[in-house]
């Protein structure tokens, strides 16, 4: 990932040292969140955080935690159905934000006759298919090229927890243990707890299990790791403590 | 401060004396009542009142599990009981128990003839107040186009939706469909339905008693006014919407609701559904007809005030009676008023009291 060992902290409006801007010969430069390009060639941070350079992918972004979820195309999110109209569900991604729309046919195998019937207050795991500043975001629960759900769709049962956007990002990393340093889920699984989770980039985590207690343990483990900034060792200790407490 | 002794009210007397009897012996200690000792009060109306004319909220109707609960009732699992949730009369249909409330807002049913008022115009439909809990809707596709043309509704129709019906206008329609939440969808695709003009609107209670419109064989009929000696028109149309909204208007031959029986054959639709069906302009109405419309309105008001049902029979009889009464007292505009004592006399005469 980031090749720079040194942490580079930026504030909005700071100048960025030219050496930090990756210069890949072929790939175009990709700017991630927290940066702004002022033509012709100035790059300015817009938020406070750690500047991260990925020379391989020729990309540059600011890593931070906090704030409100702002939808971006491709994000996996957990939404709550606010109301349904003729062809759409209107889905809330975070409190007080405008609703995203989810076409009723954007589900696996959905036709006019077989589309899922979601009540107000139901949860869906979806992917952001359209997001720009001028329009309300759009979601889909199906991979439009393969027609497969890929695990997306209504979330039935279980419990929803709010977590920080940073924690959601860590949990969604391909190697959440190595890179994200979250081990609670693996630890709990190793102790024989059976549960399933879904993590939304919008700071939501859904946990389900046959056993109510397991859901409670998983929820508390992740929330306490998140709120307490726990290290890997602390997380392991927490898991042992919670499991002991609840049994 | 002087001690005030209030006379006990008549209605209150039985329960009150009962209460005093029960507690007289221990009225000087505060142990007369306690929270747990009072469970016998629970559902006091269980069996004792079986002879009552009506059931009231909270009253246990039956504990027999063979019955199914219908409208106006709810069940509790332990012990299994069907309990009334409204005040009204009991009705049973096979094994279904339901309670018809003494009075309630109109509950739409498919096939009902209703009179409504346009409240809101939307892109492809109107929203209509029919006196129900929810506004009914009338889709653009559910009306007759002027001239009776049969075709899909186009964008042009959508743009000039207000030329058909606009806010505040009245119409008569039939309930075609019901949504899960009880909201009605109307249609006016018949010659007997459509925009209302040349008359007067009145609202009485919908469903249930106390002088409401009752569901009857015919909700719309024509009243012969020749007996009143009216010149010009000899008939007026009366539409008794099941929802308690009523329209009384000048009779027009071959048009409007009363054309029901002698309605034109299907081939004549094109000719008769002229452009004027969506006109909001009244025709000229002879003074006599206007007077008789007002009299009819007075009759219905009198029926309502005296707690009588409103249907074709009562209105027709009432109208004849009113004409007789007016004749007896000599002509004059005063004879139109049928409130108070006069209304009561009319009502008494009708039910033969």
């Amino acid at each position: 990932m980031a090749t720079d060992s040194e942490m580079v902290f930026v504030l909005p409006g700071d100048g960025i040292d030219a050496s930090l801007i990756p210069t890949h010969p072929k790939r175009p430069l990709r700017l991630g969140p927290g940066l702004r390009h002022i033509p012709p060639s100035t790059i300015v941070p817009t938020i406070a955080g750690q500047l991260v350079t990925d020379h391989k992918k020729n990309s540059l972004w600011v890593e931070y935690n906090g704030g409100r979820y702002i939808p971006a195309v491709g994000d996996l999110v957990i939404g709550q159905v606010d109301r349904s109209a003729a062809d759409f569900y209107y889905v809330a991604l975070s409190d007080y934000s405008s609703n995203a729309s989810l076409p009723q046919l954007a589900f696996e195998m959905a036709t006019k006759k077989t589309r899922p019937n979601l009540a107000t207050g139901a949860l869906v795991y979806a992917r952001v298919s359209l997001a720009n500043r001028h329009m309300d975001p759009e979601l889909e629960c199906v991979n439009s090229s393969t027609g497969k759900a890929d695990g997306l769709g209504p979330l039935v049962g279980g419990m929803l927890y709010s977590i920080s956007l940073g924690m959601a990002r860590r949990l969604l990393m391909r190697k959440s243990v190595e890179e994200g340093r979250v081990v609670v889920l693996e630890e709990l699984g190793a102790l024989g707890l059976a549960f399933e989770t879904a993590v939304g980039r919008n700071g939501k985590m859904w946990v389900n299990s046959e056993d109510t207690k397991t859901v409670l343990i998983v929820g508390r483990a992740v929330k306490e790791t998140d709120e307490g900034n726990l290290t890997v060792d602390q997380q392991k200790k927490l898991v042992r403590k919670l499991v002991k407490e609840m049994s | 401060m002087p001690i005030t002794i209030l006379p006990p009210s008549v209605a209150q007397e039985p329960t009150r004396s009962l209460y005093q009897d029960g507690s007289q012996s221990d009225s000087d200690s505060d142990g007369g009542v306690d929270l747990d000792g009072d469970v016998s009060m629970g559902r006091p109306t269980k069996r004792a009142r079986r002879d009552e004319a009506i059931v009231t909220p909270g009253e246990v109707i039956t504990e027999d599990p063979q019955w199914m609960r219908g409208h106006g009732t709810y069940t509790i699992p332990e012990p299994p009981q069907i309990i009334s949730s409204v005040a009204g009369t009991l009705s049973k249909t096979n094994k279904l128990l339901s309670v018809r409330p003494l009075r309630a807002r109109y509950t739409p049913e498919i096939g009902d003839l209703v009179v409504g008022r346009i409240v809101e115009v939307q892109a492809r439909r109107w929203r209509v107040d029919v006196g129900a809990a929810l506004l009914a809707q009338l889709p653009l596709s559910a009306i007759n186009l002027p001239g009776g043309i049969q075709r899909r509704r186009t964008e042009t129709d959508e743009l000039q939706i207000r030329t058909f019906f606009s806010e505040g206008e009245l119409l008569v329609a039939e309930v075609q469909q019901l949504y899960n939440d009880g909201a009605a969808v109307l249609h006016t695709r018949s010659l007997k339905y459509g925009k209302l003009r040349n008359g007067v609107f009145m609202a009485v209670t919908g469903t249930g008693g106390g002088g409401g419109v009752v569901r009857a064989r015919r909700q719309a009929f024509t009243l012969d006014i020749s007996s009143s000696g009216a010149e010009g028109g000899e008939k007026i149309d009366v539409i008794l919407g099941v929802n308690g909204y009523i329209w009384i208007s000048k009779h027009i031959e071959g048009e409007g609701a009363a054309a029901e029986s002698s309605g034109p054959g299907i081939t004549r639709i094109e000719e008769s559904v002229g452009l004027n069906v969506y006109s909001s302009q009244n025709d000229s109405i002879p003074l006599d007809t206007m007077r008789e419309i007002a009299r009819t309105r007075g009759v219905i008001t009198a029926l309502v005030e005296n707690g009588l049902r409103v249907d074709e029979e009562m209105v027709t009889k009432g109208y004849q009676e009113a004409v007789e009464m007016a004749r007896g007292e000599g002509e004059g505009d005063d004879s139109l008023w049928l409130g108070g004592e006069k209304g009561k006399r009319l009502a008494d005469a009708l039910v033969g009291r």
Partner: protein
Amino acid sequence: MPLDTSTYNLALLRVDGRRWNDLRRLHGQIRTQAAADGSSYLEMGNTKVMCVVTGPSESARRGGAGGGAGGPAASSSSSTATTPNGAEIAVTIVTGGFSTVDRKKRSRTDKRVQELQAGVAKALAGALHAHLYPRSTIAVSLHVLSQDGSLLACLVNASTLALVDAGVPMTDYLVACTAGSTSGHGAGDEGADPLLDLNGQEEQELPFLTLGTLGATDRVALLVCESRVQVGRLEGMMAVAADGCGHIRAALDRIVRDKGAQMVREGAIAKGESIGMDLD
């Protein structure tokens, strides 16, 4: 402040001559307003309240546009209680300036009035089967004509009557009654008696509470106490008030039944079918 009620111990009679467990004269009528969906008039002693119910009718849409003549939208001065996926219950209380001796006008934005409104609305929401009317509003408008104690109780009872008249389904009558205690707030005073259905003067001088129950049960929908009283007295006062609620329920029921019987007699409604058949 001289305690006029202090004479109670002499004859065990209250200022108006009642014993501890006497209700005041209760007089009520339903169907007082022909134009309303439901209406009532209720007197509990000299506390007199009028109630008009409109609805259930379609709620004005969020965002303002539309709505209209379908029914009076909840005005900003009313307090509303919402039920999940059901009708919204909007309560407005208007207090006539002439309802009290000092003729003080209470504005509708007065927090005390708003609290009363919220109390009545939420209590009704727990008793009505509002889930039968999604997207609707049931507007309850209460007018206080005269105040002489037990106002909240009278408001609740009048609303119940009017809602029965409007044919809105409910689990049972929601009834309310006050109970007080002849004790001061001190811990002592063991001989203190509970009192039922306080009038205005007693409310001024004695600790009291208003209790609302669902029918003649111990299920408490409403409990409001605004005076200082020993925690040990609570149970006794609640017991007396609950008992009073049972009697008020019977009284309200009688009012409704009398009206129903009259309507059946006059032929305004078809006679109900006999229930005797549930025996076979």
